[in-house]
């Protein structure tokens, strides 16, 4: 045996993988061959280096939460969460969910501003749970009447009577926040950098990037579509004889006008306050808490109070969406959905979380506010035959649809169906996703199929596996349709199975689109016999959503850019120690940057920005790791933390909102009701806490969410004085 033959065996010897005979042979050779002995040493040293340094990735909690979600969806015939989420945008949803559910209890013990001794209780991340301020309030001690014996009770003097009563009763009161930006929060306060805040920065950067790139591709066409819709709505408004529908149409038109940048007056007539109605119900059982809760304690915060003024238009638009079917032009359906999206959040431009809500308004799972609203809308429209347990059921949907059509005909909304839009701009598959459109076009258009001039979105849906879409599309009886569809499905599967790689050859837009389609295909594959979800037009709404995003971009301030600045004199913020989450976000931002082919000025700008954000988030991840390990911050994490306020100014939404959730009430009769999302502007919280000696103190400060207020550290001596004269910062509560 030559040395050359011997070499693999030397490697195996180092691994202890040789049989007795082989080992003997190799050892004998080694004894006489310096070259092979040296090889053995080097191979062992190489192995040691690999063992020492190889990356050992770990499953982060965010991914784990998503896995559990998928597992739950697979195990239960009833979906818990929409199993389909967009790659990038979906990450926000999932991350926000984690952020919302994560903060159950964290214990901060800060010895000085610079030495970080933090004890974190392990945080269980359930795949689905609603956060509730009251959960944290369980830690709140019993509060004596009139706040007697509570140190610095004088700080409660700013509360009004109802608020003070709530504080005395519950030891916790959340006041509506003021319209502040996240940047202002971090620039003015010595605040904890939370996952929520990081998400807002990240989400802002990602949505801006998406918007800008989509905008370049789509916005012009979309604006034309919206103009068209506005015109149609005006005509509808003029012709309609139903007063409520006229009003609805007028509102809808205004929403579209807002989207187009026109100014409109507020509608004084539509102030039906659904929230108030619910609040009047007083105490009832909270499904979240498993006990009775007095809902009047919850303040309607921020812009939610304005929402009822949009309620009617949302209702109208939802009905319109319901009545629109394949017989209607694509662009009208799309525009309706877009307007619906805008109606949900006409002012919070660029915040796709709201727009995602708009989608869940139509497609939401039963646990979502969206689905409940849909139910309400359907009930209003179609009467009590609408039952929540039937929403996933195709047959029931067919019946509903039929009812809806009858109703539409009776209430003359059928007029919508007769709008002639032959001269309207075509709403096409967006941006560079044309190749997909081309694929559909060439397979299902008039060239191949007689009697089918051009494929519709319904065809695309059918092609990617929506059975109802297929049924509807096939019902036209076009010869050869089914065969063409099968062939197309196969080709689409080939394309969509490998979205990332394929997308590398295309633009970011194509990438996201393909990914979305791939998700749909996967979802269909993994479906466990359950039929498609309520109004299966996910791909459709995806288009509408992205189009809406793109149109919103036109309303964004021009080319507002900022430089990430660092203020070394600012006090060093603390960071909520979730290194995995920040790293994941950094990763996400970088991946999106890679996905955007930097071929246009917008895309180049977006890419650069995403890289900056990714660096910042990597720094936060590092800082979080250091926090967990009880080390001081390194220069890099300091830099990230000190740049955070500046990043918030550039990337976070103009007004920051807390990310809380829906409170579902289940009545004694099994009926479900819901309390509005409690998300609102930055809150001010007042909480009575006991220190180690049992003395009660009133703690107050601005916060991104109630869960931040879980630091049972005693206040400093002069807290009372400070609380009375100014806003104590978070630091004053968590720093001894």
């Amino acid at each position, binding site marked *: 045996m030559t040395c050359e033959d011997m070499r693999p065996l030397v490697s195996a010897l180092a691994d202890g*993988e040789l049989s007795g005979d082989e080992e003997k042979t190799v050892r004998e050779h080694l004894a006489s061959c310096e070259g092979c002995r040296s090889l053995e040493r080097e191979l062992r040293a190489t192995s040691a*280096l690999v063992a020492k340094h190889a990356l050992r*990735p770990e499953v982060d909690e965010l991914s784990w939460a998503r896995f559990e979600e998928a597992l739950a969806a697979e195990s239960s015939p009833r979906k818990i969460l929409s199993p389909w989420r967009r790659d990038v945008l979906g990450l926000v949803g999932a991350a926000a969910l984690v952020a919302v559910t994560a903060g159950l209890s964290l214990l901060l013990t800060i010895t000085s501003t610079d030495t970080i001794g933090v004890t974190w209780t392990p945080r269980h991340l359930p795949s689905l749970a609603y956060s509730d301020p009251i959960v944290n309030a369980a830690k709140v001690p019993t509060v004596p009447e009139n706040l007697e014996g509570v140190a610095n009770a004088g700080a409660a003097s700013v509360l009004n009577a109802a608020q003070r009563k709530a504080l005395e009763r519950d030891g916790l009161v959340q006041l509506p926040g003021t319209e502040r930006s996240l940047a202002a929060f971090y620039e003015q306060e010595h605040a904890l950098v939370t996952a929520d805040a990081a998400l807002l920065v990240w989400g802002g950067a990602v949505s801006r990037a998406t918007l800008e790139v989509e905008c370049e591709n789509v916005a012009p066409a979309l604006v034309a579509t919206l103009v068209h819709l506005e015109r149609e709505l005006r005509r509808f408004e003029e012709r309609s004889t139903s007063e409520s529908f006229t009003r609805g149409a007028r509102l809808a038109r205004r929403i579209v006008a807002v989207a187009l940048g026109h100014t409109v007056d507020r509608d004084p007539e539509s102030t039906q306050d659904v929230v108030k109605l619910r609040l009047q119900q007083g105490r009832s059982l909270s499904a979240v808490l498993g006990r009775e809760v007095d809902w009047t304690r919850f303040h309607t915060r921020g812009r939610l109070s304005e929402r009822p003024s949009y309620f009617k238009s949302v209702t109208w638009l939802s009905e319109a969406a319901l009545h629109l079917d394949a017989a209607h032009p694509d662009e009208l359906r799309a525009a309706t959905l877009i307007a619906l999206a805008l109606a949900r959040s006409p002012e919070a431009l660029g915040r796709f979380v709201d727009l995602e809500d708009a989608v869940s308004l139509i497609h939401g799972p039963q646990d979502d506010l969206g689905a409940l609203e849909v139910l309400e809308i359907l009930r209003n429209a179609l009467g009590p035959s609408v039952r929540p347990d039937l929403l996933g059921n195709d047959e029931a949907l067919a019946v509903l649809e039929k009812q809806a059509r009858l109703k539409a005909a009776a209430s003359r909304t059928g007029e919508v169906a007769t709008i002639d839009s032959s001269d309207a701009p075509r709403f096409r598959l967006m941006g560079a996703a044309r190749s997909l459109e081309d694929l559909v076009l060439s397979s299902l258009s008039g060239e191949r199929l007689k009697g089918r001039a051009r494929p519709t979105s319904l065809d695309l849906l059918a092609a990617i596996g929506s059975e109802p879409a297929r049924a509807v599309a096939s019902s036209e009886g076009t010869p050869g349709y089914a065969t063409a569809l099968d062939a197309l499905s196969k080709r689409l599967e080939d394309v969509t199975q490998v979205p990332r790689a394929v997308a*590398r050859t295309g633009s970011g837009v194509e990438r996201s689109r393909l990914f979305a389609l791939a998700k749909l295909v996967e979802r269909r594959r993994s479906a466990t016999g359950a039929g498609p979800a309520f109004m299966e037009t996910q791909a459709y709404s995806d288009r509408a959503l992205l189009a809406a995003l793109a149109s919103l971009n036109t309303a964004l301030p021009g080319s507002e850019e900022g430089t990430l600045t660092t203020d070394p004199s600012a006090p060093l913020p603390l960071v909520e120690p979730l290194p995995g989450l920040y790293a994941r976000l950094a990763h996400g931002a970088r991946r999106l940057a890679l996905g955007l082919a930097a071929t246009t000025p917008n895309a180049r700008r977006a890419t650069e920005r995403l890289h900056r954000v990714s660096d910042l988030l990597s720094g936060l*991840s590092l800082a979080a790791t250091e926090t967990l390990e009880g080390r001081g911050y390194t220069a890099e994490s300091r830099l990230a933390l000190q740049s955070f306020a500046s990043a918030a100014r550039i990337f976070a939404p103009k007004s920051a909102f807390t990310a809380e959730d829906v409170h579902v009430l289940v009545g004694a009769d099994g009926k479900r009701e819901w309390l509005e999302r409690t998300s609102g502007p930055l809150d001010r919280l007042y909480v009575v806490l006991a220190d180690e000696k049992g003395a009660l103190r009133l703690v107050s400060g601005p916060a991104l969410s109630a869960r931040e207020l879980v630091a049972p550290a005693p206040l400093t001596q002069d807290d009372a004085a400070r609380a009375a004269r100014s806003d104590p910062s978070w630091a004053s509560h968590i720093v001894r």
Partner: protein
Amino acid sequence: MKDEAEELLVGRAREGDTAAFSRLAERHRDALLRAAYAVLGNEADALDATQEALLRAHRHLATYDGRASFVTWARKIATNCALNRLEQRKRDRAGELPDGDALSDRRESATAELERDEERAIVRRAIDELPPAQRAAVLLRDVEGLSYEEISEALGIPKGTVMSRIYYGRETLKEKLSRLLARSQP
């Protein structure tokens, strides 16, 4: 040695207890991820493969006969999922420009961005640059400590191939790491 807690979990998971399966999966998630990563050399793809593998394992739990340990069985599924993805990736990249690819791989991982340790960075880069087949064998051996038999099982290749892949992988690494090796040797 039998792990009774694990057997209990497997038993319950088989009876349809999703929570039990979830705990079982949680126990081994990182090992599966590392195995998938060994094959794919990319964290994000490995995460996807791991999730897919766990869901598959859940669906096919009935076929787990208990002869091998759960993690061995699940690892096999994870490497399979990863190998499928690798195959797919290869096909998709056929028409792609090579430099764009290399660039993206280098910038792929946010975790890698956090690397400050030079030696570690060099070793990781060298590992990244190995041909996937060699990388998988080397990592499963040196990081996971699997025997050649187990690697052969996980990757579905003969034992002799495992030996040669590990050897060639180490040879390549040895060349790339010669500077480090010289430093570490007396």
